[in-house]
């Protein structure tokens, strides 16, 4: 069945969009990433104008993250306190990011910066996670699992910072500056890349803050809801590029996929879950790198129409 999208101004196959939304929703529930970093390129591939794809995926991410966050919350997997501190940083960071975005666009190499950032961050994050998971899985195989238990407390310079806060749910007692800074850094990147930034936030929570994977997933989803809502509102006001028809079809697919994903997340062991996410993230970065390096079929391209 075909549906005409009023903002994208094109006709699309509803079934294809539905499957897309469902698949991304499933990943979002499973890993706690919004899935925007996968959805945006896929929408562009289907023919949706890039500006509409970036803005509309934020709207779909809200729905997928809300249902994911609720099911994680019911299982006690959301650290609200941590989420709020990350969020505070996120709002500061994304505001800075929007300024940076405008500067880069004026210089004329915005898409190169976006592509290179994706390759760098996805590649680094994916690669590190992959190595880590491999090590854990291998160690477990050799030592019969007894030594795989994570140390509860490793003392680093991070613990010397002031403004210490107790995060009961995560069993952490750390400086609030750390999650705030992580939130801000991810916020800057999220604004430039046009995604919720979950794929960066999640590893930061697991490896820098030392949160348990399941809690990190739930908390990440919780804060993504707010970040994505902020993006949806700003894009609607400044660019009029949020297509509610497109978003709705993706949402219907997404809200069905997300709970299935989060249910599976409860059954899979943490390290396997991380290895799987690492593979996906790493794969996407490789694909983007190949696109940058390979000689394009047509050396000429049209600059996408920017609103106004």
């Amino acid at each position, binding site marked *: 069945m075909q549906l005409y999208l009023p903002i994208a101004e094109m*006709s699309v196959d509803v079934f294809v969009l539905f499957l897309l939304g469902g698949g991304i929703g499933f990943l979002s529930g499973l890993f706690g990433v919004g899935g925007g970093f996968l959805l945006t390129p896929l929408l562009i591939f289907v023919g949706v104008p890039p500006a509409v794809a970036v803005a509309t995926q934020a*709207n779909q991410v809200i729905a997928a993250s809300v249902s994911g966050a609720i099911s994680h919350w019911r299982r006690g997997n959301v650290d609200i306190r941590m989420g709020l501190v990350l969020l505070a940083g996120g709002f500061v960071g994304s505001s800075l990011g929007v300024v940076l975005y405008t500067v880069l666009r004026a210089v004329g190499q915005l898409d190169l910066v976006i592509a290179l950032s994706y390759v760098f961050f996805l590649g680094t994050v994916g690669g590190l996670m992959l190595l880590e998971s491999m090590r854990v899985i291998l160690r477990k195989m050799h030592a019969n699992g007894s030594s795989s238990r994570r140390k509860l407390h490793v003392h680093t310079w991070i613990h010397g910072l002031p403004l210490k806060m107790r995060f009961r749910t995560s069993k952490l007692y750390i400086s609030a500056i750390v999650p705030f800074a992580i939130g801000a850094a991810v916020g800057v990147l999220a604004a430039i890349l046009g995604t919720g930034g979950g794929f960066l936030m999640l590893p930061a929570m697991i490896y820098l803050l030392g949160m348990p994977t399941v809690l990190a997933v739930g908390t990440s989803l919780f804060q993504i809801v707010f970040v994505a809502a902020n993006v949806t509102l700003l894009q609607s006001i400044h660019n009029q590029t949020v297509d509610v028809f497109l978003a709705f079809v993706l*949402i219907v697919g997404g809200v069905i996929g997300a709970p299935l994903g989060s249910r599976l997340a409860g059954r899979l062991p943490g390290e396997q879950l991380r290895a799987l996410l690492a593979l996906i993230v790493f794969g996407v970065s490789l694909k983007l790198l190949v696109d940058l390096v390979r000689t394009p079929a047509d050396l000429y391209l*049209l600059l996408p129409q920017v609103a106004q």
Partner: protein
Amino acid sequence: MTAHGLRSLGLALAVGAMSWLAPSAPARGQALVADLSNHLVAITTGFTGADILLFGAVEGPGDVVVTVRGPARDEVVRRKIHVAGLWINGAEVRFRGVPVFYALFASRPVADIVTDEIADIHQIGAENLNLRSDSPRSQEEIDTFRDALIRVKEREGLYMPETGRLSFLGRRLFRANLTFPGNVPTGSYTVEVLLIRDGAVVSAQTTPLYISQAGISADVYEFAHRQAALYGLLAIIVAVGSGWIAGAVFRKV
């Protein structure tokens, strides 16, 4: 009755039908009359593209050429360059007056009908479109960018790569099927019909065609542009609501 008489009768009938459909077109003393089956393409939620019938009649011999041009806008063409192993954006050329849509129909191959000069004046064929550029680059280089622009537009399905068929029914009546894809941009289109005899344009007629959103699509578009903040808030509410409902439903299942 002679063959000539029959022909006149046919023409009279055709012109009669024409004047009923397009009362504004003068029926007498005109070498060419043409009209569209519909002057408004309404894009509703189920829109997948549209077919419009162009029909008309000519007096005397000749060939008919039809161009369909969408509203004009600026386009920027960029060339990728190879820097440190990466393909990045290099030189760019801006073109003004680029129609968002272009299609050409002719009763015979255009090269056999018109001279290069006529093709250029009447913008027959995408390569003859009147695209302006104030780029300081050499004409040769600008032409390369121009060819690329047309190539991309053809790939997007908005410029027809082949000349469409315009068929004659008998010697007087002609028709052509104008096809618009599902991603056709909205706006005011121009359909130019030319009667060409011995390489010269003997008669021409321009007919407007409007492509616009209608119904719910149009309402959504209007809403998004007129009350952007409210639109954004509603989009968020719908998303949160759907996520919430789905969460509640899945708890029960």
